[in-house]
């Protein structure tokens, strides 16, 4: 009896990469952009500096990867948190849609915003 191919490995691999990338990149970004900058703890980049940075397509591509993988990381992890933490595994269809759908939405919006950054 052959069983239907299980697609969890796909989501798990994205979750795994997302976890690693978010752990490496996000703490630094969050600290410098939203804690050090408002509190004036460092020579923060000006508006022109940031816009110039973002004009580099490679940087935007990198940001896209970081944001997308982080979103899928959340989707996969939160799905299991709801299954186990709140014992909602009987709602697997709804939860999968909300989690992966939400992540997919963020990926699309990220693609649009970063692609059309003028």
């Amino acid at each position: 009896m052959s069983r239907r191919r299980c697609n969890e490995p796909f989501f798990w691999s994205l979750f795994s990469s997302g976890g690693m990338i978010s752990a490496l990149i996000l703490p630094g970004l969050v600290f410098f952009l939203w804690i050090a900058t408002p509190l004036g703890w460092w020579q923060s980049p000006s508006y022109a500096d940031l816009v110039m940075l973002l004009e580099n397509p490679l940087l935007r591509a990198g940001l896209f990867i970081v944001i997308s993988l982080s979103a899928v990381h959340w989707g996969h992890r939160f799905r299991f948190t709801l299954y186990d933490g709140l014992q909602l595994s009987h709602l697997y269809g709804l939860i999968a849609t909300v989690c992966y759908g939400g992540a997919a939405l963020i990926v699309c919006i990220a693609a649009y915003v970063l692609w059309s950054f003028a």
Partner: protein
Amino acid sequence: MNPDYKLYHPKWYRRRIPIFWWLQRLAYTKFIFRELTSLGVLYAAILILVQVWALSQGEAFYERWLAWLSWRPVLALHALVFLALIFHLVTWFSLAPKAMVVRLGSWRVPDRVLLLAHYLAWLGATALVFWGLKGR
């Protein structure tokens, strides 16, 4: 004698799992908090996107964005998000070496070395972010 008892079909007992089963043992509570850091990851990812969008809306708009970032409640929230990300980082790095078997020839790289490598990679990434962002 239990009136519900059937002589040749005794009922085996299964407990009902309480909804807050994870509060009953410290290890489980830490596990759930570890998993909930994914909400911090989501928030950070979305907000970075919003920041990029704010930058695309002109300098005046960006000034309002910066003002919003400086608002006390928002700053407090972001401090919490930062702590969540640190917790995510620490737990992720402590677990990642268990999933990988790295060999140099026949020598198996010990977990502590892999852990150090992860932290060095993180320091490197943070330094990159710092140098990349730094105002001129």
